């Protein structure tokens, strides 16, 4: 601990704390621009200058470490003049025509800082050079004329996202933010997560959808979660007049610690912006879908279900809330005793773990293990294009020396980032993992007493033959892995779909040997809950006479459309018009993700609540309510003991 005084206040902070952070902890405000609480200090803007007793010049507090006995003053005339000068320099470096800027009037940290210093104008000529606007990315644009070169975006892209797209070219007055080798953002390695936009203090980075729709002061911000995939990232949604203006990552969420992907920020709004909502219940009459009342539609549906019970199939999206999936299971499995009931993924992401959990109990760890991993092995999962935030959590640690080993059938989507890319023949994950285990034994970095490891040379050779990978590559990876202190193994559908869990058992063996955390990505937002409710069986819809399909706000995939193309009677719950709704016999309008609340179990078992953030329009009901109503029509009542039901089956993760 070190002791210092700031503006006469005695403060005690841990060693290594900066003066800025110490002041913030003590409730003392120091204006900043290039500083961001979640990024490493940069010390570029000089707005945070403070007076340090005994120092020759003013010091930037954001990079100055607090030391014993330091005496700091944050307000006096010299400081105030310095800040005004700094701001004048920044303003005149580019063309800040505030009235045209989408953040002007409260959401611009530069403008706010100037008002705070009592500035009404600046005395230096602006730089009349015009700079290019990069509008090549579909979701955001970069307006260099408003850029203050604080590099918050650059640090964000590196330190939080691990994408390393942004950099600065040239130097001095010619400095310009660039992507990769100076290409337009839309043609760069940018993955459109928008974190740079979220962290930009000015209007330079513009969220194209949110711009000019309202400033934060006119809007309300609600914390909730993204249900775009099984990561379950915390988000902050800004709404105004029952419309979503913008979505940002929630830094308070322990799951994603603020980082989100393009699905969470932008794509989850696409259906809301351009989809056609189902407004009322509909019934097919004389070949035409016509509007009906809920009563009529429920009566129609229950009659259809009653008469086709023997050959009925029911399928629910695994992106629906726990409450909905529970009601669905209660009605169709427990109530109507239908055989063919499942959720859309049919166990693809959970089968193997569920099997192994029967004998092993909980064996998978928490996503946060990735933050401290010194070696990550990914097996059969492309974390660049799916579950992107998990990919970010891995990639951002690579510059710190975390080793990345990718086992993949089609090379690697990770570009040149991994230390080792092991491209295997399809279906040979297990042999490869065996090879890694034997490799460690052969190299003497780990020992193993099992039969398989008696002759490690042979096992490595067999693995090399089966996987089509050179044995030296297997040994290199085994060496890296065997020497890791806190390794993490991340795997996905090529391993998890197998009910016998044979590959997973081998991975578990590897993990035990090196004390690795195991983490699997789980597909949709509620795949874990679907599996816990037993909604993970393969269902053949082709032979069914009638089908109940609960889509929620998701679109039907081609596979599903094919599977139900011959089904006579289709009962569909959907928020939007789509190809399945068009061919349905009864349609129930349900709410989209923003209009209904519910719980979700993410890939590492964290139970989270999604809140309702928009009032529902039209006659749509919450999906769970719609199923409750159908159950009532059929003479069943559904309890809400979903938590017990979730925990009654062994799971690979702790559900809490």
């Amino acid at each position, binding site marked *: 601990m070190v002791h210092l005084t700031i503006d006469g206040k005695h403060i005690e902070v841990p060693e290594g704390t900066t003066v800025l952070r110490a002041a913030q902890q003590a409730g003392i405000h120091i204006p900043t621009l290039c500083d961001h609480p979640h990024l490493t200090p940069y010390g570029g803007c000089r707005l945070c200058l403070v007076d340090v007793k005994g120092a020759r010049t003013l010091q930037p507090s954001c990079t100055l470490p607090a030391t014993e006995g330091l005496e700091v003053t944050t307000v006096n005339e010299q400081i105030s003049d310095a800040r005004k000068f700094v701001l004048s320099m920044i303003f005149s470096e580019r063309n800040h025509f505030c009235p045209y800027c989408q953040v002007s009037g409260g959401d611009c940290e530069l403008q706010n800082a100037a008002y705070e210093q009592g500035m009404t104008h600046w005395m230096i000529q602006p730089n009349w050079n015009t700079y290019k606007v990069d509008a090549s990315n579909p979701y955001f644009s970069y307006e260099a004329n408003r850029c203050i070169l604080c590099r918050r975006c*650059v640090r964000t892209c*590196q330190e939080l996202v691990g994408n*390393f*797209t*942004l*950099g*600065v*070219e*040239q*130097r*001095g007055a010619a400095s310009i933010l*660039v*992507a*990769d*080798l*100076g290409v337009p953002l839309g043609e760069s*390695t940018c993955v459109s997560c928008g974190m740079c936009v979220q962290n930009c203090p000015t209007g330079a980075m513009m969220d194209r959808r949110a711009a000019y729709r309202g400033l934060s002061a006119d809007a309300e911000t609600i914390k909730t979660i993204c249900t775009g995939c099984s990561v379950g990232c915390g988000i902050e949604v800004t709404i105004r007049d029952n419309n979503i203006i913008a979505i940002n990552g929630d830094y308070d969420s322990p799951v994603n610690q603020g980082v989100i992907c393009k699905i969470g920020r932008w794509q989850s709004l696409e259906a809301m912006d351009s989809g056609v909502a189902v407004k009322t219940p509909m019934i097919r009459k004389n070949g035409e879908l016509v509007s009906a009342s809920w009563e009529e539609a429920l009566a129609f549906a229950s009659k259809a279900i009653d008469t086709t019970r023997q050959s009925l199939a029911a399928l629910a999206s695994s992106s629906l809330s726990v409450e909905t999936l529970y009601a669905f299971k209660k009605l169709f499995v427990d109530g109507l005793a239908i055989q063919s009931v499942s959720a859309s993924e049919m166990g693809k992401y959970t089968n193997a773990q569920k099997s192994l959990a029967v004998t092993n109990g909980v064996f998978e760890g928490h996503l946060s293990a990735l933050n401290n991993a010194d070696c990550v092995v990914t097996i059969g999962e492309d974390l660049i294009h799916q579950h992107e935030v998990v990919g970010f959590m891995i990639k951002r640690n*690579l*510059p710190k*020396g975390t*080793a990345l080993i990718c086992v993949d059938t089609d090379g690697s989507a990770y570009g*040149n*980032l*991994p*230390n*080792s*890319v092991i491209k295997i023949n399809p279906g040979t994950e297990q042999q490869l993992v065996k090879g890694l285990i034997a490799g460690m034994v052969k190299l003497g970095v780990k020992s193993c007493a099992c039969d398989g490891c008696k002759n490690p040379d042979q096992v490595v050779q067999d693995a090399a033959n089966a996987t089509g990978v050179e044995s030296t*590559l297997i040994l*290199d*990876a085994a*060496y*890296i892995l065997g020497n890791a202190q806190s390794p993490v193994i991340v795997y996905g559908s090529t391993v998890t779909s197998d009910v016998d869990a044979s590959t997973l058992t081998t991975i578990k063996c590897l993990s035990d040997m090196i004390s690795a955390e195991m983490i699997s990505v789980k597909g949709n937002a509620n795949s874990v809950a679907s599996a816990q409710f037993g909604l993970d069986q393969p269902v053949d819809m082709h032979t069914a006479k009638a089908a109940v399909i609960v889509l929620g706000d998701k679109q039907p995939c081609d596979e599903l459309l094919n599977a139900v193309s011959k089904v006579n009677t289709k009962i569909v719950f959907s928020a939007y018009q789509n190809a399945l709704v068009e061919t349905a016999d009864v349609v129930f309008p349900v709410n989209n993700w923003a209009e209904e609340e519910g719980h979700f179990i993410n890939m590492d078992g964290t139970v989270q609540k999604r809140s309702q953030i928009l009032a529902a329009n039209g006659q749509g009901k919450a999906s769970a309510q719609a199923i409750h109503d159908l159950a009532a029509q059929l003479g069943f009542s559904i309890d809400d003991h979903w938590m017990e039901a979730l925990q009654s089956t062994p799971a690979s993760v702790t559900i809490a």
Partner: protein
Amino acid sequence: MIKQTLTPAFPSDDKRWRIVETAMKRSNYQADALIETLHAVQEAFGFVDESAMQFVSARLNLPASKVYGVATFYNLFQMKPAGEHTLSVCTGTACHVKGNDQIVEFLREEYGLNPGDTTPDGKLSFIGARCVGACGLAPVLIFDGKIVGKLSVDEMKQKIREWVNDES
């Protein structure tokens, strides 16, 4: 240190890539070998183009944006094939006031060159350099890597003409 098992191919079968490779190998492919590596590329090829930056980025496991940032930060690195001869004119403050402003003007008028340009016949490239750290010798010109200082404007013009004509 963990072994790197991903080896990008050379951008072409030009033998000079071996020199670049050796430079990187000497520093064990550490990220801080970037400047040295770019030097090696510049020396071997006379310029650092996109394919070179891509290769270096892959080989040193560095983001392309980082390589690009460093390559553009230093005037020494050129992105385009240079002319047969390169003339760097220091435009730092000391050299500027001592007459290099007139040299820049002269190059524009006499040869139609702006900083970064090469004459259409590929004979002469003109680079504008910020303070090269030899202010004591101001005004400073660099002829194909050789520093010449303390000349009057006329002497410099003379020298440039001589030098260009001499070599043509």
